[in-house]
């Protein structure tokens, strides 16, 4: 496996050799930031296209076709348009909070995004509490949504925001518990540590049934966490017109839109890191030739491939199921997912203590 750490270390050494240390750190920071922003926007655009094509396929349609070959640059047209669309200033609203909300949402998703290891050594910073940081940062998003709903001075937006608050707070628990199950197995909170622990086999295979249960719980909770169908109640197009972002126009709405798609990538990325081995290739014990071939595929491809696969599952779910109702959604979390998750955690703890896992 090619270690991207070599490249990054070389850049670091080069910068340090031509300038003082503090400046080198600053330059690195800027470089990383630019790379992140670029990646963020490119990925978001890719995801919008990905979803539109996939949903077209599911619905016996073609999806975007006319703008560019196979509609490839459709999303660019959307972005150009939305960038220069009017930002409507509303009367009787809290203008500061109204403007702040979309930024909070996008900052939250960017913080988590920055924390994902893309490949072997391709990570910005390796915390020893990386998993904890990811969960903490992702919950800033709900503040943005609540602010958006509150400051819009619109009843639909307020109902949407309140739903969103209840939903996020509830499902955060399930996400946390299912991730904790994996943390328990690997014994580390560092994201790289968890990935490296999967060199011999992905956790979903190694962890017996508890890992599979945790993966399913994670998928359901992640769908809810990203406000996507069947849990898209905060937006609930057919009930609340557009939910918490009813009053947002132009690029402010664009931020919500981008963050929604990026969050989809983030939750799929976390799923692949925690359960599917992250950037680790697929290894089957005993099949040496097969393992060697798998090692030739770059780690970035492994990571993105797994993330896109999980996103495909999530998109498939979204376009198949009807929306649940708010009481059913809360019942699902508090009556089923969380107790199951907790029991699952205990079983996993037993497995780990007794050494039942591979």
């Amino acid at each position, binding site marked *: 496996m090619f270690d991207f750490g070599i490249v990054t270390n070389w850049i670091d050494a080069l910068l340090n050799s031509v300038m003082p240390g503090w400046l080198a750190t600053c330059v690195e920071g800027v470089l990383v930031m630019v790379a992140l922003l670029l990646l963020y926007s490119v990925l978001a655009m890719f995801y919008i296209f990905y979803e539109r094509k996939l*949903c077209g396929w*599911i*619905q*016996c*349609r073609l999806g975007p076709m006319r703008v560019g070959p196979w509609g490839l640059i459709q999303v660019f047209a959307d972005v150009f348009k939305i960038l220069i669309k009017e930002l409507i200033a509303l009367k009787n609203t809290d203008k500061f909070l109204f403007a702040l909300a979309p930024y909070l949402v996008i900052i939250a998703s960017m913080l988590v995004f920055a924390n994902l290891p893309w490949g072997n050594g391709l990570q910005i910073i390796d915390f020893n509490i990386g998993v904890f940081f990811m969960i903490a940062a992702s919950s800033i998003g709900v503040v943005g949504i609540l602010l958006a709903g509150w400051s819009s001075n619109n*009843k*639909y937006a307020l*109902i949407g925001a309140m739903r969103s608050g209840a939903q996020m707070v509830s499902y955060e628990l399930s996400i946390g518990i299912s991730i904790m199950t994996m943390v328990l197995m690997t014994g580390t909170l560092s994201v790289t540590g968890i990935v490296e622990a999967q060199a011999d086999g992905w956790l979903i295979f190694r962890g017996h049934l508890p890992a599979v249960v945790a993966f399913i719980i994670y998928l359901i909770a992640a769908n809810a966490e990203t406000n996507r*169908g*069947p849990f*898209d*109640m905060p937006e*609930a*197009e*057919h*009930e*609340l*017109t557009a939910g918490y972002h009813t009053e947002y126009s132009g690029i402010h709405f664009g931020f919500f839109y981008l963050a929604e798609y990026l969050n989809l990538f983030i939750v799929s990325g976390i799923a692949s890191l925690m359960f599917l081995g992250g950037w680790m290739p697929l290894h089957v014990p005993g099949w040496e030739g097969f393992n060697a071939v798998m090692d030739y595929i770059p780690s970035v491809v492994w990571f993105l491939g797994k993330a896109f696969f999980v996103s495909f599952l999530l998109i498939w779910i979204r*376009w*198949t*199921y*009807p*929306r*649940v*109702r*708010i*009481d*059913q959604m809360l019942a699902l979390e508090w009556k089923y997912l969380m107790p199951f998750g907790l029991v699952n955690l205990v079983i996993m703890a037993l497995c780990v203590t007794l050494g039942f896992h591979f």
Partner: protein
Amino acid sequence: MVNIQEKISALCPSATFEEGDKLTVTVAEKEWHALAKALKNELGYDMLTSVVGMDWKDSLGAVYYLTSTATWEMLAVKVAVSDREKPMIHTVSDIWGVANFQEREVYDFLGIEFINHPDMRRFFLRNDWVGYPLRKDYDADPEKNPIRLTAEVNEDDTYSLEEDENGNITRVDKKVFGDDDYVVNFGPQHPSTHGVMRLRTAINGEIIKKVDVMSGYIHRGIEKLCEGLTYPQTLFFTDRMDYMSAHQNRHCACMCVEKALGIEVPRRAQVIRVMMDELMRISSHLLSYGCLTMDMGATTAFFYGFREREDVLDIFEKTCGARMSLHYNVIGGVVADLHEDFQKDVKAFIPKMRKALKEYHKLYTGNVIARNRMIGVGELSKADAISYAVTGPSGRASGFACDARKHKPYSIYNELKFNEIVRENGDCYDRYLNRLDEIEESLKILEQLVDNIPEGEICAKVPKIIKLPAGRWYQEVEASRGVFGVYIESDGDKKPFRMHFQSPCFNLVGVMDNCCKGHMIADLITIGAALDYVIPDIDR
């Protein structure tokens, strides 16, 4: 008939009788309320089919069409008041629930106030509208009612005329919503109101406390327009009321005129009409399936419904030349002969639709989220369904067997074999299943007819200028959403004196408040979609 006459005479000696299309009883305004109660409780006329507000020039009044759901006998009751300045009739909204909205419509069009009616607001027109448009002396001067671009004020204000024991009538001003109500406004522009319906909803958290239906956002004054047009011209509007029942509605209007003229429609035309009706029903139920699923968030199912609907539209297009506003039926028959591919297309369509139905069930009916969202939501009891005259698949979901094709067979329906789909629970799930099952029944009818289209004329001989003799006629058909009625009153001219369309959707919105109370906001959308009303049909 004679029997009923005697019974009514015993109840109300001053009533006079008039034989005609339906037995018509004329009663004085004072005796009307007592008679109505007796008609319902003692003679079994438990459904108020239609209330037609009338302006007979010398007097104002209303014609009430009552139906007994046991025998499907119909009775017309005529109530007239001669006071044109302040006409007042006693309400029957305490006896039949449906009268609530029906009487508001009469008030809106003719200015007749109903004593003891709980909520006397205009139903279709703005509350600052000047005049009553269906009165014969209505001043249509656009200066009086210019296009106003400001919102209506005092939407919350209403009043009722309350009568005490001594017969004194006092006006009591009321508010629709209290000061403590958190009112959320759905519509007129809202993706799930299926058009421009406006539902003002008082909520407590997510729970709905009260729904106030405000209609009229697409009230186009069809009934008034009809009074200025000849009979063939009036048919033009039937396709545009419930555009998903275009064939059935037009069929009904044609039959009403044919009945008045005594025209015998050729057999071939009858068969074609029935086949078109059933195809229209299928297309309507497919749309309804699509909209219900989409409103509940399952966008994909919507596309599946529309996929098959396009096939039906193709069949229409070949014969009628249009996809939606078809204008195929004319007085005496149909306007053009069938396209040569018609039989082939229908035969190909039937197995395809059967296969698709299975797919729909697989895709949606068994889905656990869908079931949880629909079962037990928006329940309507059979008694309420009859009281509110909820017909069609929605009424039959409540256990109310009300298919006009079975109980009041018209055209050739009595020769056909098909089942009336009745379910008992009255919730959204039953309404949804009823629609899918009715597609199957319609396919059965098509199957019976597709090889048995007789040769012959497609249109009877009809006079060039159609003049109806003086009198009144009422005809019903089973449209896609329930029983659709056409009322024609003629004074012998080539234009109708009064034409009234009794739309099924009008009754469907009447139960919104009943069904939604205690449910959640998300259920409001499901209930609306499962009742499946079409707004232009309500507003006309």
